[in-house]
């Protein structure tokens, strides 16, 4: 009550103050990509505004870990922006089911996307699509090419070569072999477990079997990645237990670490920060000649707040986001976020080209915990963070971790019971 009347009062003041100016419609975008603020303000938004006079766009991001909570509260309170950046799968599905996102199936721009691209933002039966797919991110490892040349290390293709390279770097001692910390927890799961894991559970095959209940988290393909992660602890920097995500980024871009377990979203930031040559390699396969699998995760979509005051302008913006023109601007402005539209986009960044070339060589999958399996309590994704950290630190054995995760999942997910 109090809040509404206060808002009304503020709105009235706002109306009186702006009433004299031109009738520009202004759209606010909610996003968790605070790293991309400059790119949106300098490249993407001007490109849109140049074509659509009368619509002003404001990019208003919040911190990634706070985004979901902040967005949910804002939507419930009616103070969220007009355009909502969509997390993949259940987080956005819940928003759609709660009536916060609009069904966008009738938009023409939706035809520019494949069914796989749209699947992350559809109801389970595929009857409604509520976000325009924007981009996927690919996991792999970024390395300091100067350091590799200096130490005479070849880019590793198998796990044996990978650990041999780490040993060489460690023996030399001038670089920290790998830049990752466990303080923020998610890196261990996202850049650790879900980065190397698809090679173990054979990508989509294992992921779908897990959802169908044919495989369990105690099975070897799901436990073995923890055994590999357990070996990582020796190669991380001193005090990695308290090392945060920005610490790891800085360690790598300052040239103090040789390998960075990465997601392709790092490319833009690393290009700006690092003054040495960088390269990327895909997650090493277990044995030479194995089929490789990569995590090509549909990560980011964009939808419309059902309560927006400017639905027409919002749809105009979304249609533009769905166009090949946007895909080209976005893909090149943000190398490392790979557009999902059917029209192939010519990328110019060498590092981004390296990442996207793996799509042709390997089988693609998405992160194992994102679709359906993180619907209940305990939440499998969040549990996987803790488990990956425990594996790296060696505080629990891989078998125990698999057992604990399986018990948690089976407690609410019928096909696993």
């Amino acid at each position, binding site marked *: 009550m109090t809040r509404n009347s206060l808002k009304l009062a503020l709105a009235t003041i706002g109306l009186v103050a702006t009433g004299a100016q031109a009738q520009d419609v202004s759209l606010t975008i909610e996003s968790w990509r605070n790293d991309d603020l400059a790119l949106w303000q300098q490249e993407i938004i001007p490109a849109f505004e140049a074509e659509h006079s009368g619509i002003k766009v404001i990019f208003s991001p919040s911190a990634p870990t706070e985004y979901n909570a902040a967005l949910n509260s804002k939507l419930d309170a009616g103070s969220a922006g007009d355009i909502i950046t969509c997390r993949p799968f259940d987080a956005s599905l819940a928003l759609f089911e709660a009536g916060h996102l609009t069904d966008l199936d009738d938009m023409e721009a939706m035809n520019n996307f494949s069914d796989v691209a749209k699947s992350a933002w559809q109801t389970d039966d595929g009857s409604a699509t509520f976000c325009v797919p924007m981009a996927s991110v690919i996991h792999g490892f970024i390395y300091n090419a100067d350091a590799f040349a200096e130490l005479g290390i070849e880019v590793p293709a198998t796990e044996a070569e990978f650990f041999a390279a780490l040993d060489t770097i460690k023996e030399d001692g001038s670089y920290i072999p790998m830049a990752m910390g466990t303080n923020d927890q998610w890196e261990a799961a996202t850049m650790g477990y879900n980065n190397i894991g698809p090679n173990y559970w054979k990508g989509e095959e294992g992921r779908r079997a897990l959802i169908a209940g044919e495989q369990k988290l105690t099975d070897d393909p799901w436990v073995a990645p923890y055994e590999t992660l357990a070996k990582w602890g020796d190669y991380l920097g001193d*005090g990695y237990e308290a090392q945060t995500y920005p610490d790891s980024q800085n360690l790598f871009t300052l040239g103090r670490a040789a390998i960075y377990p990465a997601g392709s979203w790092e490319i833009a930031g690393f290009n700006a920060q690092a003054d040495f040559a960088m390269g990327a390699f895909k997650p090493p396969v277990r044995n030479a000649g194995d089929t490789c699998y990569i995590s090509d995760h549909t990560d980011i979509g964009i939808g419309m707040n059902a309560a927006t005051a400017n639905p027409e302008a919002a749809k105009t913006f979304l249609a533009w986001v769905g166009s090949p023109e946007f895909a080209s601007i976005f893909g090149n402005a943000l190398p490392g976020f790979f557009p999902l539209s059917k029209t192939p986009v010519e990328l110019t960044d060498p590092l981004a080209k390296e990442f996207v070339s793996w799509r042709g060589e390997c089988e693609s999958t998405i992160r194992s915990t994102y679709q359906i399996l993180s619907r209940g309590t305990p939440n499998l994704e969040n549990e996987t963070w803790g488990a990956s950290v425990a594996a790296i630190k060696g505080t629990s054995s891989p078998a125990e971790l698999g057992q604990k995760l399986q018990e948690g999942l089976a407690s609410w997910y019928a096909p696993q019971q």
Partner: protein
Amino acid sequence: MSVPRIRWHIIVFLAPATLVYTAVMIFPLFNTLRLALYSEVEQVRVFVGLENFHTLFFDPIWSEQFWNAIGNNFWFFLIHMLVQNPIGVALAAILSHPRLRFAALYRSAIFIPTILSFVIVGFAWKLILSPIWGIAPSMLDAVGLKFLFAPWLGKEEYALTTLALISVWQFVGIPMMLIYAALLSIPDEILEAGEIEGITGMSAFWKLKLPLILPSIGIISILTFVGNFNAFDLIYVAQGALAGPDFSTDILGTFMYRTFFGFQLQLGDPHMGSAIAGAMFAIILVGVCIYLFGIQTRMRRYQL
């Protein structure tokens, strides 16, 4: 006999405070407690009675986290009671010494962290203790004690104690100020009378001053209790909503936040969150009642 008049001025003077307090405190409190009695099934809010509390206390998935958070909370409180308050009393006793020079400077320096934001304190200490850029490892190295350094905030066994000590550093000024004020209010005549009887120095503190400031220490204890069981900010700033490593710094505040608003793929559940908030309220209420009826009424007071 005239009918007693309604004394309007009392109502008028009380109204603003009562209205504001009701709107921003009493109503939200009871509404939160009410919310804890509901649950959401397929987008519809349904009344479930005490089932949320049953889940919280008896479902292993929830109760394990709940008892872990309570245990951590008591440890957090214990560190404050054992470290913050004795140091606060000691500092106040030293500051009130008449021959101490620069007392005002020390008083301000020790009190300043209290007025800093949690965010600043959290980030500053995270940087100080960072194994990579922090000054703590190099300072220890300079005196040859590098082997004592550990990434404290990242180790399950140290993280909570480290955060509790950071909080002690921040808030030690409050007990110091309250006790200092209490010490200054002790009349000189009493101390002089003591001196004539031969009670001076340390024994004057233990036998005369301490009994006189006991009520203040009681107030400080209860403030510490309420503050600690409502704590959230420092842990959230330093360790995030998952209160890592492995929930070793998870206290009721972070547990409630994570449940109520959700985290990453975990969707928020306002009803379970409210149940946790209700449990926090109950714990604090019981603690305050024990103090008010069990301790404060029995405390001896001296007319000064």
